[in-house]
């Protein structure tokens, strides 16, 4: 029975049953009759199609909380590899632990497979411990050479396939202060790119450390501390994030590529006129410390360029042992679910940390529109400009910072 026919029939029935009610002597009787007549048309509440679709999306983790059971997966595999989609599954265990697996494939032909075990929290929910195994195949990662003055015309690509197993411990020291520690086994296979020109066509091991070999084994240990006073839900228009990480990369083969990395980041949100505008500032400094006779392999060099650093440049546009990235945004909010921003990004890479000054910065500017979800930025579209690109379009999940 189609909707209109159903409506007609229902109307008719209601009309018929309403007639006796009209003949009641008292209002109480009339109401009683109305209620009595309704008895025969009762039906249990049922969810409509839209509600059932939302239930499904909720179970898939697209609305709030983690997914439950088998679910589609979407996201990014590696910077520059484009949007990826796949399938995953998540099974809770214990008090609040979970096992989750997913795999996906991107429009840039990258692939990912990941399995993770989040053990039940401890210390009254303040402590977390997770084990993660991940395989990535990124066949066309961009490489322009080492240094801050490389040419975009030297763009090459290489195949990058890291396989890692990590154990990560997190602990909330206070409501705002958290510490992390992580040990990772990382095996990296590099190869010629699928898309020409490949890295070995323009570069050699003398200017690209690590190019002489194709397999690397690392054990890394990371310790981090973060102080986050930003609002945890919705749009964060005030507060700041200050974090520092130190990572030891130990080359398990000959030790040639062992090094240490130190990264410090500061973000500050400054509301103006009750958040009518928000000035968002960020600075990241990443420095590596390498013993004599040792090198940082080209694929682990800190980089500048791309949607989360200097947006007017391509992903991994500049690589070297040290980097400095600074971002400033003037944000305004046309809606609770959307903000706009004019942004200016600048950054550089240098071989020596002493050269991380404000000279010879690579900069760019642009405008962005970002959608805000329950836990901050959910999606963004940004247009950025630099001396190398009149307009780069960035479409990405999450925010730049």
């Amino acid at each position: 029975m189609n909707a209109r026919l159903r409506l007609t029939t229902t109307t008719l029935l209601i009309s018929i049953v309403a007639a006796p009610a009209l003949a009641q002597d008292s209002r109480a009787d009339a109401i009683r009759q109305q209620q009595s007549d309704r008895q025969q048309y009762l039906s249990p509440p049922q969810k409509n199609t839209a509600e059932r679709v939302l239930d499904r999306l909720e179970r898939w983790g697209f609305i709030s909380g983690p997914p439950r059971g088998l679910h589609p997966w979407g996201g990014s595999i590696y910077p520059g590899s484009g949007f990826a989609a796949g399938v995953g599954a998540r099974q809770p265990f214990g008090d609040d632990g979970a096992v989750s697996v997913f795999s996906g494939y991107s429009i840039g032909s990258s692939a990912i497979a990941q399995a993770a075990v989040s053990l039940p929290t401890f210390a009254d929910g303040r402590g977390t411990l997770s084990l993660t195994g991940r395989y990535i195949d990124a066949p066309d990662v961009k490489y322009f050479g080492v240094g801050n003055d490389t040419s975009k015309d030297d763009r090459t690509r290489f195949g990058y396939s890291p396989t890692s197993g990590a154990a990560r411990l997190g602990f909330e020291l206070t409501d705002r202060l958290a510490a992390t520690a992580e040990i990772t086994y990382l095996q990296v296979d590099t190869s010629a790119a699928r898309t020409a020109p490949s890295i070995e066509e323009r570069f050699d091991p003398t200017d690209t450390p690590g190019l002489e070999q194709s397999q690397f084994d690392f054990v890394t240990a990371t310790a981090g501390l973060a102080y986050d006073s930003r609002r945890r839900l919705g749009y964060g228009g005030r507060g700041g994030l200050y974090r520092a990480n130190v990572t030891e990369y130990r080359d398990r083969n000959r030790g040639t590529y062992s090094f240490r990395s130190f990264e410090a980041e500061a973000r500050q949100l400054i509301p103006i006129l009750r958040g009518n505008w928000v000035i968002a500032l960020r600075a990241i400094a990443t420095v590596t410390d390498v013993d004599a006779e040792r090198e940082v392999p080209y694929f682990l060099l800190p980089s500048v360029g791309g949607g989360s650093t200097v947006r007017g440049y391509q992903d991994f546009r500049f690589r070297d042992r040290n980097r400095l990235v600074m971002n400033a945004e003037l944000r305004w909010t046309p809606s609770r679910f959307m903000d706009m921003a004019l942004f200016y990004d600048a950054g550089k890479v240098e071989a020596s940390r002493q050269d991380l000054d404000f000279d010879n910065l690579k900069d760019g500017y642009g405008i962005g529109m970002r959608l805000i979800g329950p836990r901050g930025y959910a999606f963004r579209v940004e247009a950025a400009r630099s001396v190398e690109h009149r307009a780069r379009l960035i479409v990405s999940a999450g925010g730049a910072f």
Partner: protein
Amino acid sequence: MLSINRTVAVPCLAVTALFFILTAAGGLAATPRFLSDDPIAVVVDSQDASNVTKRDIDLVYDTIENLFTKPGDPTSNVRAQSVSTIDEVPDSSWFTNRIGAVPISVDELVKGPDTTNGPEPGAWSVIAAKIDGVTPGFTVRDASGQVWFLKFDPPGYRAMATGTEIVVSKLMWALGYHVPEVHIASLNPDRLTVGEKATITINGRKRALKRADINAALNKAHRDKDGSYRVIASKALEGQPLGGFKFYGTRSDDPNDVIAHEHRRELRAYGTFAAWLNHVDSKSINTLDTLVERDGRKIVRHHLLDFGSTIGSAGVYPREAYEGSEYLVEGKKTLAGIPTLGLYVKGWRTAPRYRSSTVGSFPSDNSTWDPEQWKPRYANSAFRAARMDDKFWAARRLQLFTSDMLRAVTQVGQFNDPPSETALAKFLIDRRDAIVRRYLIAVNPIVDLQLPENGRLMFANAAVDADAASMPMEYVANWSRFDNATGTTTAVGTTRSAGSRTSVPVPIDLPTAEGTYVRAEIAAMGGPAAWSAPVQAYFLRQHANWKLVGFERLPGGNAPNSSAPPTATARSQAIQRASITDTRQH
């Protein structure tokens, strides 16, 4: 697009139309407008509703549905259907007349719905816990076996959510709504024990509750220096929980739910009360139906709950400035805001606000606040359907809260912050006054009609009595005999009186036979434009007295542009006009 099976649908439509014609011709002619027990004061849920089933409201769906669609009856300007023939809301499973129906003292207001002194001292057994999200909560059973829901203040905002919740609960109770009994209590975590069958749901998965879960939840709450927690203890409502109610349509499995919710005056008026209290979270998930037993049968009783996110509290944060001024999504404003670089600064950005950690954040100057411009996070069908007569009805109830009552009720919040309590009371008083000023003059404000044997129709002018408007130039009453069986009227005459007198003469030849119905249409001329639309009052001659059996404030519905601020006449003009003497015309 709907496809229509014409071979079936057309005959059905024809039969329906024919039925209505026949009903209109015969049925209505035999249907009196007023029945023997009008006006009723109570609506009884007569049918057993044992078969209702639990139905949870999905917040995401509810949000999307109400932000982007307008569910419910698309017809605008529909008179509230839950009112009696004298335009009042009878007691029912939805509403119990309190303020306005009976005098309520300050002590009664402060006591509110309380039937106990709160949870019994001693150990509280936790039978369920909620630690998802940012606001923890426990369900506990006290020593007497009574179940309570415990909620906390967010870290750094002691009393903000708990104090606000109890204050607003008392006010909503006094207004007539069914709300839970709530108490402020101090919780020493050692008093909490894990119940035998206690469960917790984390990320959609239910499992046995552990002590660590309780500690994890407490980590998200404000803790006092002595290690205790201030909590609001909300007594479990009587009956079996059935989930929330929607603000449109009816519950499909409840036989007694015969009026579409958007046409319930008590739910329409809830919009005005929500505006008063800046209750931007007035949505379906903050309601609860329960299955209770009355007179030997099961019926559904309807409640409002969760008032911790009202006035200056947003539950986990102080209230944001936009809340109350904008919906979550406003299409045109959003588009307009994209290219402006934020240079178009909305009024709420610059409006002065009171801020404190105890009461949160709310506008400090409400002298020019217009309740008609208030917006919850998203509107609901009942709020949208509200007419000016519904809002007038709400304003009349608010008017009855004296400033002393509002000052006293803020003390119930135990904010321990006198300046903030003063600011909170001022907020309630100023916004009450703003609502009274706005809605008492927005429609013809004649109230309390009586037709005694002194030859005059007596009434009051609610707006003038509230000092919200000057008296009109004159009152004009058109009198007619009313045939209750057919609904037809026969003119009797017109009488007038000066605006300074809240009575008009009765026509000399007004019929007075037992069982006679008369109708008086009374307009207030020379006042705000809306006052010239007459109210209709129906009287029945019964036992040698006139009994008010019918009243309609807006027989013609909302006037066009009724949401625009009405124009008031100057008191001086009215006083000059007050010298007009009574006249009788017939």
